[in-house]
C-alpha cells in the first residue's frame, strides 16, 4: 500500500505528462504481481467495490468528529478523500504493519455491505495519512489524479515497447490483476490470446480544422458529412455477444438495452448515439442527457427517450476486418448492411455535397438541423486508423455563440484550484435601459489560462462585496465590473434559472478588461437566440 500511496502522491505533484509516464512505467517494472495489476486496475477504473460508498466514509468520520468541523475542513481542502485522510484520528502505526495493495483489494472484494464500515475503519487505523488517501480513492473509485486510463495504457506500451493500439484492442479481454499482460510486456510469454468476444476497436479521431489547413487540401480528395451533437459510440456484435462502447473504450451497454437488442450479428459499427426516431425526429443533446450516466433505465425512460445510432463507419462485417479498406469502400459496405437493421435504431449519416471549401463553409454555417454541430471531412482513400492521425480526418465545428457578460460571483475551485476563485457566475443586463440590473445567465470555470486565472483571482479578491462561505460576490455595476466574453454551444429554455435560459458548454473566451461593464450585452441578445 505504501508504494501505491507514494505513486499517487508523486503523480499528483508531477505536472509533466512524460514525468507521469516514467513514474508509472517505473512502478510497473518495480512492483511485483499482483499488486501492480491491482494498481493498474485502479488507474483504469477497473475496480469496483460496491460495498464502500463515500456516504459510508462520511458516516465513519462523523462518528469520530464534530460534523461542523468536518464541513469546515472539507470546504477548505476541497477533496473528500483527502479531507478524511487528514482528519482521521489514527494512532501512530508502524509502517511494516500496513497491508500490501493486493491484500487491501482482496479484502475489499470480499467484504459485505454490513461489514464494510468496520473493515474500512480498521484499514484506515493501520495507515498513515498518505496511504489513507490512497485507500479511500481506491475504495470509492475515481482516483482523479490527472492520470487517464489511456495514459496508464501508454505507460504499459512504453514499458513493453509495444504500440498502444495493441493494448487497447486486447484490453477488454483481460482480467484483473493482468498477470498474462505483464508477462507479455516483460517478454516472458506471448501475446495474451483473448477468448473474449466483441472487443473494442480503438476509435479513429479527427483534428480540428486549423488556420490555413484547408488551403493545403484538395477538396476532391475528401467527402464531408454532418457532425451530430450526440455521443460517439461503437457497437460491436460477435458470436452472440453484443457490446456498446464509448469512444474511450468504456463499456456502456447496460444503459442502452433498446439499442443493444437491435444490433445485428457479427458486425462493428461506428456512429453517434442520439435520442429520437431517425425516421422522424432527432432529439437535442439535452434529451440525450436524460439517458446518460445511468446504470439502469426505466420503461418510461425507454419510451420517452428512445436512442438510436446514426452510423458513420463500418469496422467489421462477418469475418472481415474492413478497417484497412478505404473510406469509400467502407461507406459502400455500410450502405449494404444497414437495411438489415431495425430502422428505428440505426440509420446512415448523410453526406454533404460540396465542390469547394467556400460552398462547404456556407453549408456548415447554415446546417439543416439544430442537432448538427459542424461538418466532418474524411479522406476518400483513408483506412480506419486508431488514434488521431494528422491528415485523413478533420472536424470543422460551427462557430460558438458568444456574449459579453459581467462577472457577478466567484467561487473557490476544488482540487488543484482549491485556493483560487475559479468558478465564475456571470450575468447580462436586464430591465429598464436607464436602470439596468444584472441577471445571472451561466457559470463557467474554464477557457482561461493559468495566468488569466491568477489575474481574475486577484480581481475577485480586490473587488469583493460580500462573502458567503466559498463564494464571493464581486462588484458589478454599470460603472465598474469585469466583462467576460463567454462562448457557448447553444441555449436552452430553463425554468430553473431566473433568466429563463441555460447555456450549453459555456466557457470564458476572452477577458475584456478594456470593455466598460455598462457595454456588456443585454438579456434580449440571448432570448433572440431562443426564438430561432
Amino acid at each position, binding site marked *: 500500500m505504501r508504494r501505491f500511496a507514494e505513486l499517487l*502522491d508523486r503523480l*499528483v*505533484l*508531477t*505536472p509533466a505528462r512524460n514525468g507521469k509516464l516514467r513514474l508509472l512505467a517505473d512502478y510497473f517494472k518495480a512492483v511485483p504481481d499482483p499488486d501492480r495489476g491491482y494498481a493498474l486496475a485502479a488507474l483504469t477504473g477497473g475496480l469496483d467495490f460496491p460495498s464502500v460508498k463515500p456516504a459510508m466514509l462520511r458516516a465513519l468520520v462523523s462518528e469520530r*468528529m*464534530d460534523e*461542523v*468541523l*468536518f464541513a*469546515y*475542513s472539507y470546504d*477548505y*481542502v*476541497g*477533496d473528500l478523500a*483527502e*479531507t478524511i485522510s*487528514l*482528519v482521521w484520528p489514527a494512532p501512530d502505526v508502524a509502517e511494516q504493519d500496513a497491508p500490501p495493495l493486493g491484500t487491501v483489494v482482496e479484502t475489499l472484494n470480499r467484504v459485505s455491505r454490513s461489514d464494510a464500515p468496520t473493515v474500512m475503519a480498521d484499514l484506515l487505523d493501520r495507515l498513515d495519512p498518505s496511504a489513507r*488517501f490512497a485507500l479511500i480513492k481506491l475504495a470509492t473509485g475515481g482516483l482523479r489524479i490527472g492520470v487517464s486510463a489511456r495514459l496508464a495504457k501508454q505507460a504499459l506500451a512504453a514499458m513493453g515497447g509495444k504500440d498502444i493500439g495493441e493494448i487497447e484492442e486486447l484490453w477488454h479481454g483481460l482480467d484483473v490483476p493482468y498477470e498474462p499482460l505483464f508477462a507479455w510486456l516483460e517478454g516472458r510469454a506471448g501475446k495474451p490470446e483473448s477468448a473474449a468476444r466483441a472487443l473494442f476497436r480503438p476509435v479513429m479521431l479527427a483534428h480540428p480544422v486549423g488556420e490555413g489547413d484547408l488551403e493545403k487540401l484538395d477538396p476532391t480528395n475528401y467527402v464531408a458529412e454532418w457532425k451530430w451533437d450526440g455521443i460517439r459510440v461503437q457497437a460491436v456484435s460477435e458470436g452472440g455477444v453484443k457490446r456498446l462502447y464509448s469512444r474511450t473504450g468504456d463499456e456502456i451497454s447496460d444503459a442502452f438495452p433498446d439499442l443493444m437488442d437491435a444490433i445485428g450479428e457479427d458486425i462493428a459499427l461506428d456512429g453517434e448515439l442520439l435520442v429520437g426516431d431517425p425516421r422522424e425526429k432527432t432529439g437535442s443533446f439535452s434529451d440525450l442527457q436524460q439517458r446518460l450516466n445511468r446504470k439502469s433505465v426505466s420503461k418510461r425512460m425507454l419510451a420517452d427517450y428512445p436512442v438510436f445510432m446514426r452510423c458513420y463507419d463500418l469496422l467489421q462485417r462477418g469475418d472481415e476486418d474492413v478497417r484497412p479498406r478505404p473510406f469509400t469502400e467502407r461507406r459502400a459496405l455500410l450502405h449494404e448492411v444497414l437495411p438489415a437493421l431495425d430502422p428505428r435504431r440505426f440509420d446512415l449519416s448523410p453526406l454533404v455535397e460540396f465542390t469547394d471549401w467556400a460552398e462547404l463553409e456556407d453549408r456548415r454555417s447554415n446546417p439543416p438541423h439544430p442537432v448538427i454541430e459542424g461538418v466532418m471531412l474524411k479522406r476518400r482513400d483513408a483506412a480506419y486508423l486508431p488514434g488521431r492521425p494528422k491528415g485523413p480526418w478533420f472536424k470543422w465545428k460551427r462557430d460558438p455563440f458568444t456574449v459579453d457578460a459581467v462577472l457577478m460571483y466567484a467561487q473557490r475551485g476544488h*482540487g*488543484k*484550484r*482549491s*485556493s*483560487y476563485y475559479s468558478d465564475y457566475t456571470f450575468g447580462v443586463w436586464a430591465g429598464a435601459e436607464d436602470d439596468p440590473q444584472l441577471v445571472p445567465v451561466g457559470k463557467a470555470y474554464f477557457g482561461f489560462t493559468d495566468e488569466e486565472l491568477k489575474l481574475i483571482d486577484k480581481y475577485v479578491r480586490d473587488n469583493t462585496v460580500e462573502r458567503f462561505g466559498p463564494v464571493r460576490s464581486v462588484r458589478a455595476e454599470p460603472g465598474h465590473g469585469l466583462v467576460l466574453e463567454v462562448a457557448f454551444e447553444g441555449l436552452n429554455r430553463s425554468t430553473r434559472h431566473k433568466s429563463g435560459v441555460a447555456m450549453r458548454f459555456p466557457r470564458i473566451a476572452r477577458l475584456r478588461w478594456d470593455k466598460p461593464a455598462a457595454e456588456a450585452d443585454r438579456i434580449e441578445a440571448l432570448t433572440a437566440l431562443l426564438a430561432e
Partner: protein
Amino acid sequence: MKPQDLLRPRPEGLYCPPGDFFIDPVRAVDRALITHGHADHARAGHRAVLATKETLDIMRLRYGNDFAETRQAAAYGERIGMGGVTVSFHPAGHVLGSAQIAVEAGGLRIVASGDYKRHVDATCAPFEPVRCDVFITEATFGLPVFVHPAPEIETARLIASLAQFPERAHIVGAYSLGKAQRVISLLRAGGHDAPILIHGALARISRYYQGQGIKLGRLEPATVEEGTATRAAGQVVVAPPSVLGDRWTRRFADPLSVFASGWMRIRQRAKQRGVELPLILSDHADWNELTATIRETGAGEVWVTHGREEALVRWCEINGIAARPLNLVGYEDEAE
C-alpha cells in the same frame, strides 16, 4: 472591568484604552507593543515601541535604527506598568524573540499570544503557557486537517532526497525570519554538515541568529552572477518562498523545489506552487497544539484571530468555552 474595556479591536490593531497602547498595530501609532519581528506584526513608524530585545534588534535590522522614536526592551516575565495596567512578555516559541503579551488590570488578565507554536525549536525559547481569563489565539492552522508531523521526520526526507537526486540543486523555500534558520538548524541536527547556500534576503537575519549563539554551521551566499549547469548539485539552497519556480532558481542545476510550510499538509497546495518535495514544517501551532494550549491557559473566554477562526470558535463552543472571532485585519500568512 469587562474584557472589552481592557482590550478591543480597532482598525489599527488591538487597543488597550486604560494603557493607551496597541498590540501589533498595522498602522503607525503613538505606542505599540510588538509580539515578534515578522513584517505583518512589526511595522516601522510607531513613536514608542515596547518589545523583547531580540524583536527590537530584528526590527532595527529590517527597518534601520530609526524605526521608532523610542524603544524599550522587555525581558521575559518582567512586569511593566503602562498607565493603569500591567503588561508582561512571555515566550511564544514562534521565532527568536517572539512573545505573548499579558495585559492585566483590576484582577483581569488577557493574554495576546501573537503567533506561537509548541513543537520543539532549537532557534528560540519554548512557549510558556500563561494562566489567564481571556486568551487571544491565532488560528493560522485552525482546522483539524492541520497536524504537523515531527519536524525531524520532515528534514530527514530532504536529506534523503539529496542522496537520491545528487544531480539536482534542492531549493528550499522558507520564510526568511525564523523558518529559514530553523530548517538549517534541523538539517544540522540531522547530520547534514555540508555548506548551505543562502539567498541574500536571509543573510543578515541568519548572521544575527548566529550572533545569538544559534548554531547554523557554514553558510555561503547563493546569489552569484553566473550559474553553471552543475551549480549547487546535491546541495541545499535556502531562499524566500517567493523565489520557488522563479527565474532566480535557473542559475542552479536542475532545481528541485522544496517548500517548508504548514500548508504543505494539503496536497493541492503543493501542486499549485509546483512543489516537488513538500516539507510540512511550521512555526505556527497546529490544530492539536491550538486546542491543547487553549485548555492549558484555563481561559474561560477565547478570542480567535487571523486564520480559520470559525473552526476554532466551533471547537470552543463544543468544549464549553466562550469564544468569538476578533476580525482583526492585516495578518495573512500565506508564505508561512
